[in-house]
């Protein structure tokens, strides 16, 4: 007869196991930290800045064991978390809005990033003017043949409302969320846009330079190739800053050390390797 005592023992063992595993993973971290402090820097925000942030954090972890937590949930979410204190640092891939600055947020540009319009590799159209891009995304132009391409309906793919890349893209190209074509596919995350475009010859979307690969073809703007050099030379205008934002006085020195590392030689090197454009 399964007496209740055995069940009680089982539950007891279960909880001890949980507590043990919780603290064991704690302790082995403590012992390694050189300067004894095991501060955690919680960073959340843009899904474009995120991957760069993770690569930087991985490199940074080799010399300093401050735990860097990178949460990829979208620029506006990062900014909201920075304001509300849920995260110490917010990552944004767009400039701060007035009310966000008013909330006491300081910003540091850690790199620049270009946004490139992408289409299916089979798409003959390789070059667009800023005006044409606007017409595509606002629905004035609906067929690729109007842009010198094949007779194919255009399927617009855009990012979700809170994405920094979308805000920056819309600001530079010059249309508002309300004007975005209604049946545009909304894909959350650069990766999602890339796979949607890569699998659909009708599709057109925009992604951060970091995500460029051979599964999609990139569009030049007014004949200017989408490359970090052209952004630095200000010839390619579709770019936006990668910002770390934090509330005045809320930045711990562990956080400050991480930012200094990013702005240092090695930090900017990693940014370049990741496809972003170094600040220095």
């Amino acid at each position, binding site marked *: 007869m399964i007496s209740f005592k055995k069940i009680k023992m089982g539950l007891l063992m*279960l909880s001890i196991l949980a507590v043990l595993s919780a603290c064991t993973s*704690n302790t082995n971290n403590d012992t390694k930290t050189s300067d004894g402090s095991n501060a955690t820097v919680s960073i959340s925000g843009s899904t474009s800045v995120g991957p760069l942030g993770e690569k930087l954090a991985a490199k940074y972890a080799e010399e300093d064991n401050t735990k860097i937590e990178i949460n990829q949930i979208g620029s506006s979410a990062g900014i909201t978390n920075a304001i509300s204190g849920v995260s110490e640092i917010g990552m944004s891939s767009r400039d701060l809005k007035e009310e966000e600055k008013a909330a006491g947020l300081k910003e540091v540009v850690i790199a620049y990033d270009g946004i490139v319009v992408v289409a299916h590799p089979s798409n003959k159209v390789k070059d667009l003017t800023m005006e044409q891009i606007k017409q595509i995304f606002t629905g004035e132009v609906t067929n690729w043949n109007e842009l010198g391409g094949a007779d194919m309906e255009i399927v617009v793919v855009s990012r979700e409302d809170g994405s920094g890349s979308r805000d920056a893209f819309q600001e530079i190209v010059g249309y508002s969320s309300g004007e975005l074509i209604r049946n545009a596919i909304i894909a959350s995350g650069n990766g999602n846009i890339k796979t949607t475009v890569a699998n659909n010859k009708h599709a057109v979307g925009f992604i951060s330079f970091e995500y460029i690969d051979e599964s999609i073809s990139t569009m030049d703007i007014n004949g200017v190739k989408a490359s970090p050099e052209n952004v630095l030379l200000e010839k390619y205008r579709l770019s936006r800053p990668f910002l770390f934002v934090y509330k005045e006085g809320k930045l711990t020195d562990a956080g400050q050390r991480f930012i200094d590392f990013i702005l240092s030689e090695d930090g900017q090197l990693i940014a370049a390797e990741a496809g972003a454009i170094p600040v220095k």
Partner: protein
Amino acid sequence: MIQLKDKLLRGLLWISAFLSVAVLVMIVGFIFYKGINLISFSFIFGDYSPTGGGGIWPMIVTTIYTILISLIIATPIGIFAAVYLQEYAKQGRLVRTIRFATESLTGIPSIIYGLFGAVFFVTTLKLGMSIIAASLTLTIIVLPVIIRTTEEALKTVPLSYREGSLALGTTKLQTLYKVILPSAMPGVLSGIILSIGRIVGESAAIFLTAGTVAAMPDSIFSSARTLTVHAYLVTQESGDIELAAAVGIVLIVIILVINLSATFISKKLNRATNK
């Protein structure tokens, strides 16, 4: 004419059964086909690396954390609440309304729990995006399940056991943990197993409360990804279907293990009680 109608209907039965099985085979087949070559020892136990090629061990640990913490909080409260509703409370209208409320709570989509958790636990209680915030949200999700299944199990215990025990001069508490709960145990356990299944499969609620940090969580206060959230983010972020499918295989294996152990335990318990 009847023969024709019969044949037609019998045909329809066979076709729909075939369709269901075909769908099952297709889905499980797709996941294994796409993900199997990624499965390896290092994939399951390796640490995550942002530049790809890493393992999913942190996600497995996070999933285990969420299961353990949610159950450790939800099981006692759920069982004790069910005991109160079934054994102590007067079966008046109040108890019936509570039961109807828990009934409809089990039907609420988990995204609403995620909504609530994201604001209440993450921001209001200042827990931040963390495993504990996600686990508390999951606790609220599984609590009604545990209460309902435990109550049903308590109902199956014959009244004669209670009277027999009380008539021997034992207190209600002794009767409860010596006679009533042990014989209701199979039902209670099935409720717990059901909850584990729901926790493992949950993604919407966890996505909004535990965040997306893809690293080994330090403690229950750090943000982390569970397996299901990882499968979703991988599909969304990098569009890597193979990796998502591989995570899917691990999830299916976990669900299989849970279901099999559930049937095994309930068989053993049933045999024990009415041997």
